[in-house]
């Protein structure tokens, strides 16, 4: 022990070993030369490719003896899918000008019945190719009209999105629902959670964002000639607020004609005059040895003039290790039009979920989990109440 201490004491008297390096390091590097590790080819620069695997099985058990929509007794549903997502950003020497996102899956379904994370599969028994995200973003589209001085202050305010993506209603736009069992309200509220649209998005200021889109109202298929069309708008708190105080939220409004959905007990190929206003909040904070997230989505409006009221409340807990989590959700969708002909006044469920994360990257870029979910249907407008137990394997990498 003595020897090293003596050596260290001697070294105290040495000259500063970094003196010459400080002098040379103050010389600047060329800021115009290409980045040393960057590539410029199409599949190299700002290119992202993700793979996705999913397998789940659900057991439906009826609480009552019969159902007009389901066979009596217990029923198994299975779903497997393999897919991918491509993201590519496009840049000039001084500006990132756009981004492309394409996501699709080959899906296999057997003995389908509607579960919270798969309500569109009614007509897709067996193998089916599904597209999910398909959109192009163009950033700062007003730039060609602006002077150099104004370009800086306008950055981030006027971006164009064209394609298929989440409806600008509720928390969906700012939520990563890749493969999750628990879903937000839109799929049950409108019959689908994504639509084809074109419109503007961006920041109002550092704390508030906006979205304003014209949508075809057609859901899965891009059918501009079917006669529908909706306007959707949303004002939301930015991610800066989320990071500062853990709060997200917004107000949304949507109006127009959308294609009917069997999910909402509507007849096929009908046009539904749709109006909705909604408010949502999500709060994330430290709790015990992890984080707790409380979410709510509320909306009110009408379908063909009859009132609709939706409520969703959710609590998520994620352990600090990010190795396991649990969640609970209460969801209720009340539609006057169906309720007058059906059994109950609403579709209401309570769902519990447990997750074991094999991988759970902080940025959701690498996910691998096994989930167990149990949904207890408390009230059904059509059909009998049941319990759905789902086991899911998911990998995104």
């Amino acid at each position, binding site marked *: 022990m003595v020897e090293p201490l003596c050596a*260290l004491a001697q070294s105290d008297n040495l000259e500063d070993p970094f003196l010459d390096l400080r002098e040379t390091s103050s010389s600047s590097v060329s800021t115009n030369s290409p980045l040393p590790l960057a590539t410029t080819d199409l599949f190299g620069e700002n290119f992202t*490719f993700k793979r996705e695997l999913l397998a789940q099985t659900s057991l439906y058990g009826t609480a009552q003896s019969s159902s007009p929509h389901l066979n009596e007794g217990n029923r198994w549903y299975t779903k497997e899918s393999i897919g991918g997502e491509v993201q590519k950003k496009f840049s000039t020497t001084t*500006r990132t000008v756009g981004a492309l996102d394409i996501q699709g899956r080959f899906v296999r379904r057997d003995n389908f019945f509607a579960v919270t994370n798969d309500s569109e599969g009614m007509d897709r028994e067996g193998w089916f*190719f599904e597209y999910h995200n398909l959109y192009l973003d163009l950033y700062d589209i007003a730039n060609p009209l602006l002077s150099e001085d104004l370009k*800086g202050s306008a950055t981030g305010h006027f971006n164009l999105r064209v394609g298929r993506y989440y409806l600008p209603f509720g928390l969906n736009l700012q939520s990563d629902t890749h493969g999750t069992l628990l879903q937000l309200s839109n799929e049950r509220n409108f019959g689908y959670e994504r639509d084809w649209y074109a419109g503007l998005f961006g920041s109002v200021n*550092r704390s508030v964002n906006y979205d304003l889109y014209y949508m075809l109202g057609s859901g899965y298929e891009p059918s501009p000639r079917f006669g529908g069309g909706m306007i959707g708008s949303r004002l939301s708190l930015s991610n800066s607020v989320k990071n500062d105080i853990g709060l997200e939220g917004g107000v949304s409004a949507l109006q127009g004609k959308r294609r009917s959905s069997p999910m909402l007990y509507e007849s096929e190929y009908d046009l539904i005059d749709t109006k909705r206003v909604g408010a949502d909040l999500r709060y994330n904070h430290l709790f015990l040895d992890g*984080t707790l997230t409380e979410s709510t989505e509320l909306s009110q409006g009408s379908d063909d003039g009859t009132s609709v009221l939706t409520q969703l409340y959710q609590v998520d807990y994620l352990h600090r290790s990010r190795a396991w989590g649990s969640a609970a959700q209460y969801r209720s969708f009340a539609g006057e039009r169906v309720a007058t002909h059906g059994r109950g006044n609403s579709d209401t469920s309570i769902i519990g979920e447990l997750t074991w994360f094999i991988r759970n990257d*902080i940025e959701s870029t690498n996910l691998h989990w096994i989930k167990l979910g149990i949904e207890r249907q408390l009230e059904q407008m059509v059909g009998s109440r049941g319990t759905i137990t789902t086991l899911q394997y998911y990998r995104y990498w």
Partner: protein
Amino acid sequence: MKFIFIALLTLSLWIPRTLVAAVGCTLSSPAEDLKYLYPEMTSFKEQLFNFETLKEGKLLFEKAKERIGSDLDPVYETFETPYTLYQVFSGEKLLGLVHGVNVPGQGGVIQVFLSLDPTTGAIQNFFFQRLQSPVASELKKKEFRDQFKGVTLGDFYAHDFYKSKSKPDPKDSLAKIHSPSTSETGTKDFEASVRGIRKNLVLIDQFFFGNKFEPFYLRAQQSLKQAK
């Protein structure tokens, strides 16, 4: 239309593993955040980096680990973790670099962002984008964060040598910076934050500067050996 999707997906499933990348550690509201940091900004450019896709990525990753000076967390700091470097411009002039990293803290994630002078590599601003910590308010204070202004990666490497000396060295700019919290959790999150700054600087040195500060690392290692 369906044919195009199927063709694209099939093609993409055959894309070699070396092209796999992901978007990560991005600014929450890039345009607004960068305008706040650089009010004279007219445009910005994003550049994604991922060790998985870089030539000799494994070697670079190992080198980064050595220069960070501690083991990497298997959840927050994996080989596959992607990074986004923002270059901020005023016209054609590069004003600054902004880059963020995640490090594990006592309450969860600590996301450390730095803005750097692109010519000298010195810190212009240091801020937390996400900070899940019981002492978040103390670590976020401007007076604490401002102490890192002007610090370079060279200072971190030199600190490795200075701290081995029996007396504090006045040239050791990092020795003067202390935890704003005296609690055990606060001290640990302070240390995690400083480690995050160092990790961030190491990565920017690789991604942008082409290892400009490598001579400091080699000199520090050499001097430590000589001192022993």
